[in-house]
């Protein structure tokens, strides 16, 4: 594993344990997820117990310890989305991608995950793919969107 890319973040953080979450966020940005080697390396460099680094990592929903596809599909399961049919959307996504939640598709293009509210409630049911928000989804519409993204790749 190449640790070099993480160097600027680690140098800026030094041994300030308050910067741990920020370092983890940058590491995830670089590597796509947080493999155990990275966590151990961060622990060593920041002089924080590895158990604590893992504890923080697993506490927050944003951090992933498994690799994800190129397109992370975040399906909102907030209240507004729930009452407007987000479970049918999630089912359609699972069926289309042919994988379980949090698993990566074989071609490495997609991982889908159910998340708490994305704050786009007026567009419910909503999802985010990367930084893009899609709203007023139906089982058919979500498949269309994913197909389009797949074709773009």
């Amino acid at each position, binding site marked *: 594993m190449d640790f070099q890319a993480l160097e600027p973040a680690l140098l800026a953080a030094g041994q300030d344990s308050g910067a741990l*979450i920020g370092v983890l966020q940058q590491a995830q940005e670089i590597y796509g997820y947080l493999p155990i080697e990275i966590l151990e390396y961060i622990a060593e460099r920041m002089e924080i117990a590895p158990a604590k680094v893992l504890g923080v990592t697993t*506490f*927050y929903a944003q951090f992933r310890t498994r690799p994800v596809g190129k397109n992370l599909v975040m399906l909102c399961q907030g209240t507004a989305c729930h*009452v407007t049919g987000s479970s049918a959307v999630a089912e359609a996504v699972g069926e289309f991608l042919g994988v379980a939640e949090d698993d990566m598709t074989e071609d490495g293009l997609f991982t889908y995950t159910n998340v708490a509210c994305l704050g786009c409630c007026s567009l419910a049911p909503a999802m*985010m793919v990367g*930084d893009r*928000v899609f709203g007023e989804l139906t089982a058919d519409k979500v498949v269309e969107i994913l197909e389009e993204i797949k074709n773009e790749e």
Partner: protein
Amino acid sequence: MRNEELKIVVGRGSCGNAAGAGRVFDFFTEAGFVPTIAGCIGACYLEPIVELYDGARRVATYVRVDLEAAAEIVKYLENQNSSDDEYKISEADAAILFGQTRIALANCGIINPEEIEEYIARGGYEAAKAAIISGTAEEIIEEIKVSGLAGRGGAGFPTWFKWQACRNSPGGEKYIICNADEGDPGAFMDRAIIEGDPHAVIEGMIIGAFAIGSAHGIVYVRAEYPLAIHRLNIALEQARQKGFLGANIFNSGFNFDIRIKAGAGAFVCGEETALIASLEGERGMPRLKPPFPAQKGYKGKPSNINNVETFANVPWICRNGGAAFAAYGTENSRGTKVFALAGKVKNGGLVEVPMGATLNHVIFDLGGGIKSDKAFKAVQMGGPSGGCIPASLGETVIDYKSLAATGAIMGSGGMVVMDEDTCMVDLARFFLDFTCKESCGKCTHCRIGTKRMLEILERICAGGGRDGDIETLEELAESIREGSLCALGQTAPNPVLTTLKYFRDEYENHIVHKKCNAKSCRPLITYDIIAEKCVGCGLCLRNCPVWAISGEIRDIHIIWQNDCTKCGRCVASCPFHAIIVQ
């Protein structure tokens, strides 16, 4: 004649972008115009919204602007004889949108959030300047006290009291923190305010920092809000360049700067002490109070935490006086409140109303009523910590006391509207699933109690409800409320208790008769074909994903109950309404 004078403003909040505002913006650019952007104006159901301004005067508002509409607008701009009426906002929508009393949202959707000059042109940073140059901390706190401003994040604690406590707390280094970790499902006003008017929040923080004597500000914002973080970063940089942040602000000798901390996704971090733990790089777990953050907060120093909407109200109060703010609202709840309307309501989006308005006013007069004109059943206020208020209490006045009397809370202002198709038991299950996942695990009653409640609710929704389940739920609710340290646990049973209070018959119907009133719990419903209505077209058969329907063309079809997964696609596909759900 081409009209170059008019300014084209495209709404580019997250909602506008999702509706296609980016394409519309690019279209105007390619047509040779120089459009600008604005944040969310609140009418998300009308996005993408494009407005024309003659100087500061709004001359036209176009709604649901697709590329075709944009082309028409360009035509109109190039030749005034052409008509643009087709895409203009309706009178009814305009009355709702422009008829609101807006304080926190005053600039949202109007100014370009990425241009500090537009904020300044509307009186921005005047309040901060006046406060710092010619005011005293005591005067500011007194003004906020007169205004009656209370925390808009949920708890409704008087803002002046927190500021005073932090100011009086001994210790040189103090922190002022803006809580933008809007984790409450169904609320999105904080996102919209930061995306649409970030300088109002910054100015509110500057005034607050001066009042409590703090040099360090932190905005703790959700990582799920990339656009909000982006705009806030731009705004901070512009404020620094103007000298509104940094050393020696307004040459007064007062130093203050703000940094952004992106949260990493944990609902419990909305709680003050958990938020502080998260800022310190720890797992976001609450701790016992006292000591309160005002005494011992971030890094052990006195800290003051307010919500985004609270800060956004501060500059207005300082400019117009606390009494002007207090003139709105009721005896115990002053000012205005922003509500996020979502769910089965027609006009989804943000509205700002004076405290004291009724729920019906917000849902029907501003929200336009229920989608597909179904029956209004209930509204969920305050997210997972709040409760369900039934339609029969629609005349309830919106203030802290009246809402608490129903068993719900004001919360951060999320209003998820539900119609007859929403099952109240399933809704309670949904919220318990949320709090169970989001419980930090520190308190046993919250960690295990919510899990036990969830298991019971799941069983009831799956048709396994037993005699005594309701009583067990009530007992668990009581012990979780008493045995939890923070508000997450203390309020986690609220959705169950309020649905039990107002919709007990639905629970009983699930448990005793194994039937779901709203026909939404799959294990409790069956799909059947009405022989008299079926013409044997075969559409349902072709749409069934599990081959649970059989029948020859022009013969009556049947659904094999053992194979049916109750997905509902046959109902949606039948043009003759021959399939019923029971």
